[in-house]
Every structure is written in structure tokens, then in C-alpha cells.
């Protein structure tokens, strides 16, 4: 019995376990898509409604070639990223204002509760009337859906910063601005980053619903259009592209998180 050997054994068993998990994951993927294809071909499910992977793939190649897929995806991606950034930024700024003035925060408290409880997408029609049926409306939808929750979460984080850090700053004669910059903001950084992850998902919801309503461009439009002309292959294609992009965005935010929060 020596330690090195035991360690090696431990590592191989760990590697084995990981390989097994990866195998299961691939298996699920293959089973899902091949049974989808099979069921559709055998007409165990209605191929008109559920389409099939091969048809989706063909449509993908065709739309890729004529450039429409790229332009629709580009539009949606642009709107989502912008809505996400604006929502997070405005939410954080609002949280800072609330921290700045305890009186303001107490005054606004019931309104924040109402706004938070309210399903934001229901505001869609009003937003479209206000900003017109185009980019601004859809980006607003992507942003508005995450502003309030960001405000609440970030403001809570601001208030939970250990008051002793503020005490240290106060004995150095720091102003409120300095206290915010030196302690409150950096101490809440991990929370702000974690709201980013939530907001990625929310912005997708806001933008897709916005595109449903405006119905002019983008992946949300493709879903609505496909639904109206009964082309469910197009709907499936749009759904899959959304899934891929949303995952990539989420992974990017996670990467950012690991880069920014070293400890």
C-alpha cells in the first residue's frame, strides 16, 4: 500500500465516472433526435406539427444559404444583448439611487413590490404604442423585464455590506460617494454578476415576446410566421437557434464571472 498508488487509483476511478456521465449525456442526445426522426417518419407523431430533425437541418442549410437566417438571428441577438445590458445597467443605477437616499427607498418600496409582481410582458402592447413597432420597443421589452428584479437584488446586496467597512471609511473621513465606490460597489460585485446570469434568460423572454408582437424581423418573428403559415419546421429551427444562442450567452457570462471574481 503506498499513497501514490492509491492516488492513482482514485484518479482513474474519477476519470471513469466522468467518462460514464459524458456517455449518458451523448446517449440522451442521440436517443432524443433519432427517436424524433423515427417517430416522425413512421408517422407515430404528426410530421406536419412536429417536423423532423432532417427537415429542420435541410431548412437550416437552405436559410443559411439565402442569408435570411443570418439576418434574423443577428437582429434578435442584437436586441437581446442590448436589452440585457440596458436592463442590468439601469437596474444597478436605480439600486444605487435607492442606497443613496434611504428616504427615497422607503418611499418607493411599495411601488417596487407592485412592479416586481407585475408580469412585465403584459406591458408589451403599451410599449409598442409608445415607441413604435421596431427596435426601440423590442429592446425596451428585453430591458424592462429585468430592471426591477435587478434593482431589488442589487439594492439588497448594497445594504448587506458589512457596516464595519463603512465604519473604517468613515473614520478616514470618506464621503458617501467615496464609501460607495470603495466599499459598497466592490463588495456587491459578486451579486451583480450573478444577476447578469438571471438577466440573460429574462432578456430572451422579453425580446422574443416583443418580436411576437411587432412581427417584423427576428427569430421571434420566424416562430410567429411559421405558426401562421403552418410551417412548423421553421418554428423548430428558430427554437433551436434560440436555445444555442441563449446557452452561448449564458456561458459567456459565466466565463466573465470566473474572470472577475478571482476568489
Amino acid at each position, binding site marked *: 500500500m503506498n499513497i501514490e498508488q492509491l492516488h492513482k487509483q482514485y484518479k482513474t476511478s474519477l476519470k471513469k465516472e466522468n467518462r460514464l456521465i459524458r456517455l449518458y449525456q451523448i446517449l440522451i442526445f442521440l436517443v432524443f433526435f433519432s427517436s424524433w426522426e423515427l417517430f416522425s417518419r413512421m408517422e407515430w407523431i404528426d410530421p406536419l406539427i412536429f417536423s423532423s430533425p432532417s427537415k429542420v437541418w435541410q431548412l437550416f442549410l437552405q436559410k443559411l444559404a439565402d442569408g435570411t437566417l443570418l439576418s434574423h438571428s443577428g437582429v434578435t441577438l442584437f436586441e437581446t444583448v442590448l436589452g440585457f445590458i440596458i436592463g442590468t445597467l439601469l437596474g444597478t443605477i436605480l439600486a444605487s439611487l435607492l442606497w443613496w437616499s434611504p428616504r427615497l427607498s422607503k418611499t418607493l418600496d411599495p411601488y417596487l413590490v407592485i412592479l416586481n409582481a407585475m408580469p412585465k410582458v403584459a406591458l408589451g402592447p403599451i410599449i409598442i404604442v409608445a415607441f413604435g413597432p421596431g427596435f426601440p420597443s423590442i429592446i425596451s421589452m428585453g430591458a424592462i423585464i429585468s430592471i426591477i428584479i435587478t434593482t431589488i437584488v442589487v439594492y439588497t446586496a448594497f445594504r448587506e455590506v*458589512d457596516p*464595519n*467597512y463603512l*465604519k*473604517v*471609511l*468613515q*473614520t*478616514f*473621513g*470618506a*464621503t458617501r460617494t*467615496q464609501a460607495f465606490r*470603495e*466599499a459598497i460597489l*466592490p*463588495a456587491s*460585485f459578486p451579486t451583480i454578476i450573478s444577476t447578469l446570469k438571471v438577466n440573460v434568460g429574462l432578456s430572451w423572454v422579453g425580446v422574443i415576446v416583443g418580436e411576437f408582437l411587432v412581427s417584423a424581423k427576428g427569430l421571434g418573428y420566424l416562430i410567429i410566421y411559421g405558426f401562421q403559415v403552418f410551417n412548423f419546421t421553421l418554428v423548430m429551427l428558430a427554437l433551436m437557434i434560440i436555445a444555442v444562442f441563449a446557452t452561448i450567452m449564458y456561458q459567456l457570462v459565466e466565463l466573465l464571472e470566473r474572470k472577475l471574481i478571482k*476568489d
Partner: protein
Amino acid sequence: MSFLTIQDIHHTYFSNQTAATALADISLDIEKGEFVSFLGPSGCGKTTLLSIIAGLFPPTSGKILLENKPLDADSDTSIGYMLQQDYLFPWKTIEENILLGLKLIKKDEGLERIKTLKLLSDVGLGGTGKLYPRELSGGMRQRAALARTLAVDPKILLLDEPFSALDYQTKLKLEDLVFETLKSFGKTAVLVTHDIGEAIAMSDRIYLFSPNPGRVHKTFEVPDELRGLMPFHARNHPQYPILFQTIWKELESLEY
């Protein structure tokens, strides 16, 4: 005229339901270069008094004068405050932490900067400037906190149980270091503690506080033989247990 004058301080904490008087009739004088201790069981208002001296909040009534002038906490770094825990900012390096006070008054460049970084080696932390607080032991972090407090060259240092979160050995070593450093800079200091031995070993005078509400119960002068000694050696001096017994009896009498 004293260096620090504390005059008729009363303090009551108000809340919706209660008005809790934490301090009553506190008057005392501290001379330049003195090291005094506030000793007493917890809850007798020591931290409250220190916070008032530091200007963190105003007392309900009474006055604090430093060199005959009232304190203006917002524009003043003449008071240094060290807390029970180091409260170094974890996202800043040791160097950035030490320079914090100077940064706030925009003096963290040039000569001041060099002087401050030298403080780091004065407290035995040379070469750790680029490290983060989490990479340092508890004792080292508290030394960094001392350097941070000294960096703005305060006229008086307030130490609120700065050794109580440390293990015994580290605590003894740090007592010596703080004592030596403050003496060499000729600083005036107020130490809050509930450790009789620490109060005797480190200070020139001890104010014993009694609770409900916090008052100065009795004042003890530490004999000259002990004052000059480093805390570690003071603890081994024949005078030490005598004073210890006297204060101990006084503390016992407070409980009834």
C-alpha cells in the same frame, strides 16, 4: 488643558419601543503620548464611547475636545480607529488597503506613498504589499490594519479590542508590536479591552467601567515600573499580579 478632553458625556440609544442609556456622566482627560485603557465587562458602553470619540455619531449630550477644539469627523483624519477584526478590504491588495486613507484625501502619491509603504516593514510585513488579505494570517492582517490606521498619521489611536479575535501567542506578540510602534511614533492611544492583564501590560492608566448605564467606576494608575516595560515583560514583573488582584476584586464587586 488636556490633549483629549471628554466632558459630561451621556448617550442614550433610541428606538421605537425603548430608550437605552449606554453612557452616563463620563468625564476624563488624556494627555499627549499617554496610553490609557477602558476596561470592563461587555455591555458597559466601551464601544459606544470609542465611537463617539471617533466622531461616528454625536453623543446625546456632552463634548469631546481634541487640543481644545471640537472634532469634525467628516473632514478629519486626526483620529485613527482600529476594530476588533481587521476589516481589510478583501478585493484590495495589502498595499492598496494601507493606502486607503491617503487615497481618500488624494495624497497617495509621491513621498507620502513611500512613507506609508515603509510602515509596512515597520510592522513586520515587508514584502507582502502585493498580496491579498486572505493570503495573510490573522495576526498579520491585524498588523496590516494597524499600518492602515497609522498611515494617515492620526493624533490619537482608538483600539477596540484589537487582539481579542487572535490566538493567545499571536496576541502577546502583537501587544508588544503595537506598544513599541505607538511609543516610537509618540502616539496617544485608547485601548478598549475586557482583559485585565492586557490593560495592565499596555497602559499608563486604566479606567474601569461599570454597566447599566456605563460609568467610570474607578481609575487605576499603572506603577512607573511597569509603564516602561514591553507588555510581555510587564506581565512577568512582581508589581503585575498585585495590580491584577486589586482590579480583579473591584470587578468582582461590580457583579453584586
